[in-house]
């Protein structure tokens, strides 16, 4: 009897520490994102010139770029918001008003962190350390910090994907499936499709989660089916004008191009092949790679020289090194000013990133796979896990599809950034695995968490522009 208050007070003080750590992580994320938004050059990110000109064209002339004018196939959602932010920057007299478009991404990163906490709270109520661990993983992964600091639509896609997971999880967990929440979910998955084509696989993952819950829980089949119909209808209605526009103008409603067209082929230059010669070339799919291209880990290069030029572009090595470091030379090195050229010291830093990413990646994969198996094997009791578990699967499938159908010899179509909408779910997987190990083997857990803190600090420092 005397022990009860001790336990309660112990748990309460543990809860206070966990809460403070959560706040510290959120403040750190906000501070780093705000710093990066102004420290990282607006023109420095992935295809930044195209994104910036799209935003200007949209808000200044209310036009969408035509084929050959950059990202004509990307929906206008982000550009509308970032263009508005840029105008505000103009009005405020900023020398580079596009920085406010980057700041918008920083705010979305913090918003995504809060949504992640909301999902963990729904899925694992009462577990004090799981939210801290999951948020910690999200804060330390460079692919998120890098992309959040750029003028780029992917952070908005990540925010909407995470919001859709939160709404779907709540819908399934509560089991009442009110129509208002279904409409909200439909609006979010529909809006995600107006930001990037990634919104389509987010939509697919959410639908699959709802179908899974409907099949696994016969007692709620009727309201679940009604919610599913609403989500499908609203989720398709919202982006349908965009799909119709792409179909009528370019003959492909989703990508606005076929796989026979390379993603960013330059305009023919003097000395290039003439059109008849071009037509006689084998289509890009002829570049289809052997199986090892998709399965090889690129060892030891992924850990010793994790950058283009030294490491041959293959599916897993590019995804991994771009997630934890800077394979393409867009963040800490590269030919474009003001980034320095590759040097032994930069290579050492990238190699360090590959090493510090190894354990967190391992734990994220373990946790995600465990959540997936748990969600499928215990679907009747744990159907609310489906959305979180299916999102990374859909992301990997989409990245694989894109890399294999839009082949680029330099690996440009398999960037780690394409996984960004699923990163919060992988971070939850990381938290789930680490917390599980910590509870099962407290001493090992302590050592593991100590190691992860070091990895986190090193990795976070790399993500500061």
């Amino acid at each position, binding site marked *: 009897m005397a022990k009860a208050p001790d336990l309660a007070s112990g748990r309460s003080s543990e809860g206070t520490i966990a809460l403070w750590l959560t706040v510290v992580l959120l403040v750190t994320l906000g501070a780093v994102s705000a710093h990066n938004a102004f420290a990282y050059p607006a023109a420095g990110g992935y295809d930044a010139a195209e994104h910036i000109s799209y935003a200007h064209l949209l808000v200044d002339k209310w036009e969408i770029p035509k084929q050959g004018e950059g990202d004509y196939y990307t929906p206008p959602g982000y550009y509308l918001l970032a263009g508005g932010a840029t105008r505000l920057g103009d009005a405020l007299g900023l020398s580079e008003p596009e920085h406010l478009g980057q700041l918008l991404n920083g705010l979305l990163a913090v918003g995504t962190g809060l949504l992640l906490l909301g999902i963990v709270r729904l899925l694992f109520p*009462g*577990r004090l350390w799981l939210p801290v661990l999951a948020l910690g993983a999200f804060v330390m992964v460079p692919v998120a910090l890098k992309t959040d600091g750029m003028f780029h639509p992917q952070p908005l896609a990540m925010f909407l994907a995470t919001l859709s997971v939160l709404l779907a999880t709540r819908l399934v967990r509560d089991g009442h499936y009110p129509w208002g929440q279904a409409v909200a979910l439909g609006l979010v998955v529909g809006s995600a499709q107006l930001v990037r084509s990634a919104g389509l696989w987010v939509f697919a993952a959410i639908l699959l989660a709802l179908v899974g819950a409907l099949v696994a829980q016969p007692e709620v089949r009727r309201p679940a089916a009604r919610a599913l119909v609403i989500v499908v209808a609203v989720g398709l209605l919202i982006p349908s004008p965009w799909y119709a526009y792409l179909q009528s103008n370019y003959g492909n409603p989703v990508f606005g191009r076929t796989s026979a067209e*390379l993603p960013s*082929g*330059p305009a*023919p*230059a*003097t*000395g*290039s*092949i003439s059109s008849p010669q*071009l037509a006689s*070339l084998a289509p*890009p799919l002829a*570049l289809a790679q*052997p199986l*090892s291209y998709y*399965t*090889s*880990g*690129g*060892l030891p290069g992924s850990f010793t020289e994790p950058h*283009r*030029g030294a490491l*041959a572009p293959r599916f*897993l090595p590019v995804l991994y090194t771009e997630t934890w470091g800077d394979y393409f030379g867009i963040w800490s090195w590269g*030919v474009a000013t003001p980034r320095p050229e*590759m040097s032994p010291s930069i290579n050492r830093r990238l190699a360090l990133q590959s090493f510090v990413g190894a354990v967190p990646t*391992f734990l994220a*994969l*373990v*946790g995600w*796979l*465990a*959540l997936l*198996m*748990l969600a499928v*094997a*215990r679907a009747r009791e744990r159907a609310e896990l489906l959305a979180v578990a299916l999102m990374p699967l859909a992301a990997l499938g989409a990245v694989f599809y894109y890399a294999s159908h839009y082949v*680029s*010899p*330099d690996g440009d179509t398999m960037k780690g950034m394409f996984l960004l909408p699923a990163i919060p779910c992988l971070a939850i997987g990381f938290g*789930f*695995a680490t917390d*599980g*190990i910590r*509870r*099962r083997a407290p001493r090992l857990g302590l050592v593991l968490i100590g190691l992860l803190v070091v990895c986190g600090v090193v990795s976070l420092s790399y993500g500061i522009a």
Partner: protein
Amino acid sequence: MIEASEQQQEWPFLRVSLLVVSAFLLLELVGTEVDRRINPSPSSLALTTKCLRNEKRLVVETGAIDPIGKTADGGVARTRIEGNGVTIVIASSEAKAKKIAGYYSAVSGGPEDAIQLWKHDVLVWEGSPSPTQQQTVYDCYY
């Protein structure tokens, strides 16, 4: 109590997942080694040529036409970008590339920036390269 029982239910899944991911990593290590022995990585010349042809849609010829280029053990690729001809001479090491760049500099009558050294590659331009011309080669640099 509910929390504890939930966690007891979860541990078997975590354990299986730990084993599966560990096995995948082990397979990855073994497979990579086997793959490296069966399929040696394509050479830098092959990758650069493939990229310039397929991604940049340029006409590319291989093989040296000058005596210095013939000493390069990694091969030579020649192309023309926006009207400016470039010879990409690939050496097997940075030291060899430096030596080759030195030979070209000694005999070159072109502009100062016509000969460039990029790690184990030497770029010999006909005229001063523009940033976009350099970017094109850089995009295909392996």
